[in-house]
């Protein structure tokens, strides 16, 4: 995609300054095309990390929009700024010391109770998460619901920036998921068994022996092993 005149160029305003960029670029690539060498406001470029939280309005529309710059497309007559950092409170805790995980959520984040039910967080979330609903779930003591509703959170902080009740939703949800992951499921029996085997040295000699084999000896074992298949069952390693 060359910077030629054959492309449809669209006007965008980056922090108030007009630039023309090719149509079809993400906001991030549009900023780079305009000459910004990003340091803050850029991260994985894949929608995982939440570094590129962006706020914008489009001319003719009174509404404020939120997006990840690496995901959303630049639009004609868009006025934007990035929000690469926003002050947010994170409660600290020791997971090992927590006796009542659901109650602890409220102790750690009492401001959850101030939720006004205004829906601003939901409208802000670039992942389309039900933020207000997971806040409600935490207030009800339903950590499973809170963990599952918040699972796709990239912690960009836009919900927190918009919250009139000054809740740090994404940090509260971080606690909910950890508490859920740590306490909700029974311990996996198969892993317990394997850990016990390892502690007893069950695999020490067999693996140690492999480290002393020649490449040809390893190859012979490698090609003769059986392979589990996606649908279950086993197949030969070769052929």
């Amino acid at each position: 995609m060359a910077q030629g005149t054959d492309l449809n160029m669209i006007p965008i305003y980056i922090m108030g300054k007009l630039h023309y960029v090719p149509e079809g670029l993400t906001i991030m690539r549009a900023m780079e095309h305009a000459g910004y060498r990003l340091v803050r406001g850029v991260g994985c470029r894949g929608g995982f990390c939440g570094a590129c939280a962006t706020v914008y309005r489009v001319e003719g529309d009174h509404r404020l929009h939120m997006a990840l710059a690496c995901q959303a497309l630049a639009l004609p007559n868009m006025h934007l700024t990035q929000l690469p950092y926003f002050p947010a409170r994170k409660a600290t805790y020791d997971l090992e010391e927590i006796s009542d995980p659901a109650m602890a959520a409220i102790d750690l984040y009492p401001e959850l109770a101030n939720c006004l039910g205004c829906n601003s967080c939901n409208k802000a979330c670039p992942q389309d998460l039900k933020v207000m609903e997971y806040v409600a779930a935490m207030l009800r003591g339903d950590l499973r619901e809170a963990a599952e509703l918040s699972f796709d959170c990239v912690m960009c902080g836009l919900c927190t920036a918009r919250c009139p009740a000054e809740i740090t939703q994404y940090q509260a949800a971080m606690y909910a998921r950890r508490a859920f992951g740590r306490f909700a499921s029974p311990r996996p029996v198969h892993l317990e068994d394997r850990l016990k085997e390892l502690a007893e040295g069950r695999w020490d000699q067999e693996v140690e022996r492999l480290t002393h084999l020649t490449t040809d000896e390893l190859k012979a074992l490698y090609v003769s092993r059986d392979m589990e298949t996606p649908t279950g069952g086993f197949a030969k390693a070769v052929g």
Partner: protein
Amino acid sequence: MRPSLRLLEATRPQRMREAFPRMSPEEKTALLEAFHPDFRADGMREIRVGPNRGDHTPHEFADQLEARSRIDPDQIDLERIDHDVDVLVIGGGGGGSTAALIAQEHGARVLLATKLRHGDSNTTMAEGGIAAASHRHDSPYLHYLDTMGGGRYMNKPELVQALVMDAPIVLDWLLRLGVMFDREPDGTLICSLAGGQSRKRIHSAKDYSGLEMMRVLRDECRNRGVPVLEFSPAVELIVDERGCCAGAVLYSFDTSRYLIVRARTVVLATGGIGRLHIQGFPTTNHYGATADGLVIAYRAGARLLYMDAIQYHPTGAAWPEQMLGWLCTEALRGTGAHLVNVEGKRFINELETRDATSSAIIREVDHRGKGVRTPAGNHGVWLDTPMIDMLGGEGKIHRLFAGLERRFKSYGIDMTREPLLVYPTQHYQNGGVEMVDAEGRTTVPNLFVAGEVGGGVQGRNRLGGNSLVDIFVFGRRAGRAAALQAKEVEPARLTLDHVREYHRHLSEAGILNGRVSPLLLPDYTTVQPASGARS
């Protein structure tokens, strides 16, 4: 695209009934030598300075080695120490965060310095999951065999031994930290396959596996008060007068100042190389993956291993244009999706190792002319994702691959109903700073490495699932060893003589190109998207 799509749908019932044979070792070797980018002689050149002089490496990385420091050693006052710690951890991804937590647990005063924000890393972007032999029908023995075979038997045995024996322990550590792995109601950990893994041993957290682990580790670092310095990349290591690593010079992006960190030991966990766009490939990697750690360790005298072995993930998105090079997790193939050419035919067993699968796609597209042309004029092959729901029941894609589904949907592609177009994308650096023992030691005393920046664990080709386990296993080992060793180290005079010496070697080799390194950040203001900087 349309006629080919109809062929793919027509052949699907038959394909779903038939098994595709796996290659013999001889067939695989021939395929790699003919089609893998590592074997393109014009993509590589000889390294002319430093400990690996005479080895071959891709031009893009050689450029980073054949460059002067960003700093003039004569302008840096090493007496003015900004931070004085026991263990300096460089890099705030999964490996660095783990090393910092464990070093602190062992009583060390720790500083974690990172180039961007804490957590900004390839760890965050890992979709598939973490390999560990946790199930009864699996074993560390098989995990060892798979990893060695996948690495073409060039892995260091003692490192693979540590990897597979620690893997279940690391899994337990992550569970106790509250990582939300995919589970059955009875607590059983759900596993899938990856290419070359002979058992279902990839433990996932939907297709946000790495993000989930990273945000838990970052949260734990904050809970435990691990000091973190963000937006402060290391631009050189500091070596003391005895030749031991003793800290680093950091550059503060925010204040444009250099900071001196004195440390008794250093753990380097700076990750990979993808943003150098080796051989012009797009990459799945993070913005910060610019080989910084490799460059500064090399100047400090560390030997590198297998820096000519680059991993291309078989299934980067080839369409839509905005997602070019985007990772489409191996778990899609692990749960049954076929690779299909323009004629609707399979051409490789989808669960061959990544080097072989990528080579087969390159052969199909670039040499046999059986790729599918995208509207933008690129070529790829089909990844038949609708098969996943057909095999595993309606809703499986939504349950396991919600992130990917969302992204494609935003461009009007419903991967539950239509296949994706894919082509290999640069994904991983198989080699790195040579690890000389299973605690992450290097050839430079008091310098440790963990994760992708280290070389030796993965041989010349890493298996899916083996990088997340690598960063935690060796993050823990390096963190512990660095903390224990720090107690033995007596501080000595700090120097940057190794930088002066490196500059002298560059001059002697006639390398006077004006380049400086490490790169720190790619520049996409001048390089336009279609010429490499694709996502």
